């Protein structure tokens, strides 16, 4: 049993590193989430995520913030600021995925021209 779980975890790790939907997110959903990150997070944080009314979400700006605090901010927002809670909209898994994109510097707009 444990071996099976470990095997699953291993395969999940290796798959997620190449961007395949091992974390349960379909390729289609990943495309949607990437679009959400750019367009909807981008409406406050800028299309390139370098900041707007909300702060920059580029890796340099996030350095020093723990992954857990970022997850918490996305989940529940930041009361007293304009950051809304995303838990009503996104699953825990999806929030995980988005925060990983931000930490990896993989969230900014890629030219679609």
């Amino acid at each position, binding site marked *: 049993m444990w071996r099976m779980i470990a095997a699953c975890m291993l395969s999940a790790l290796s798959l997620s590193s190449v961007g395949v939907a091992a974390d349960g997110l379909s390729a289609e959903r990943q495309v949607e989430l990437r*679009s959400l990150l750019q367009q909807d997070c981008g*409406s406050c944080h800028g299309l390139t995520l370098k900041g*707007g*009314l909300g702060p920059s979400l580029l890796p340099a700006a996030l350095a020093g913030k723990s992954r857990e605090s970022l997850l918490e901010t996305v989940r529940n927002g930041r009361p007293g600021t*304009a950051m809304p809670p995303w838990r009503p*909209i996104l699953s825990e898994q999806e929030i995980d995925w988005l925060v990983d994109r931000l930490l990896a510097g993989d969230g900014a*707009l890629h*030219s679609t*021209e």
Partner: protein
Amino acid sequence: MPGKRPITPELRTELKTGAFVILLLAAMLSATLASASTLLRGTGDLAIIIERASGAVQIVETTGNTRIGRVAGLGDLSHASAVFSRDGRYAYVFGRDGGLSKVDLLEAKLVTRVLQSGNSIGGAISQDGRLVAVSNYQPGGVKIFDAADLSLVADIPAEYGDGLRSKVIGLVDAPGQRFVFSLWDAGETWVVEMRDPAKPVIRKFKDIGRNPYDGLITPDGRFYIAGLFGEDGMALLDLWHLDKGVERILPGYGKGEQALPVYKMPHLEGWAVAGDRAFVPAVGHHEVLVMDTKTWREVGRIPVQGQPVFVMARPDGRQIWVNFAFPRNDKIQVIDSESLTIIRTLTPGKGVLHMEFEPRGEEVWVSVRDADQVHVYDTASLERRTVLPAHKPSGIFMTARAHRIGL
């Protein structure tokens, strides 16, 4: 026969040369005519459509509803907006990356572009059309440029507290060669008079309320209203009587209700005024608030299907069109301004970001980001008339704005 020459190789060459010259002349003539027909037109029916993700604007005409040009190379245009020169020939486009671009609508080309800050949010053109002001987030403040060549005229840092700088929002032009704007972080409204461009005269109004998110000026240029994000209410400034200071209006409009999450900041524009009523988005409540513009008191509220973003009156004031924040941004609701009821819910598609009425209101242009389309609706039948392709369209700005206060 006299004059008839045998067709020798020399004659053939002559004939060919002659034909070539005639063709060349014809081509030059038609090119001249073509460019003359491009230039010889008014701009009163032109508009630009921001293609936010590709740093370009489309130039369209609203008589036949067709695209006539495209200008690229304008940088990051997320949340871009534009104002027009008073002759209606040039658009000044304000980009998120701090870029200020002057675009020639007739020649469909970029005239000048300056990167004037790290991060900007919008701008305005002065009453006399000679100055263009830009509101900046980073570094927070307002910069004012010569509209002709975009050279810097004045730099007004939004300083407050102990050496802090605020993000600036809600910048509009006002009569008396003035600009009015608000400070998001500081909760202030500033009025800057630019009669002598070398000596801006600044008047500051403090404690207007927490986190003003945008501002509008009434179409007559008299009242400036800042919407507040940090509390329920708005801040009203009578530009005829600055000494009266800022008055809080619609205080506590959401009292007793749980505020809902806001996934996109609403906008305010002078279009919100229809006759003696003003229609504004509630923040954190799925409602449009209605005020009497004589008393600035609430006279009604209209429940709508999501967080309103733009609340815009048709130019004749008979209809109010509302679009919405994520995740309900696929719809538009049309309100009858007399009965204050919703007369139609339209579903153009995901990412309805902006609406712009043609100057006399018979049609409205709607950008539908995720469909990569702009839809044109007939406002009488509420039927869709035209669909134009556009890459991730956001703001739509018509040259008629050139002659409106506060736009």
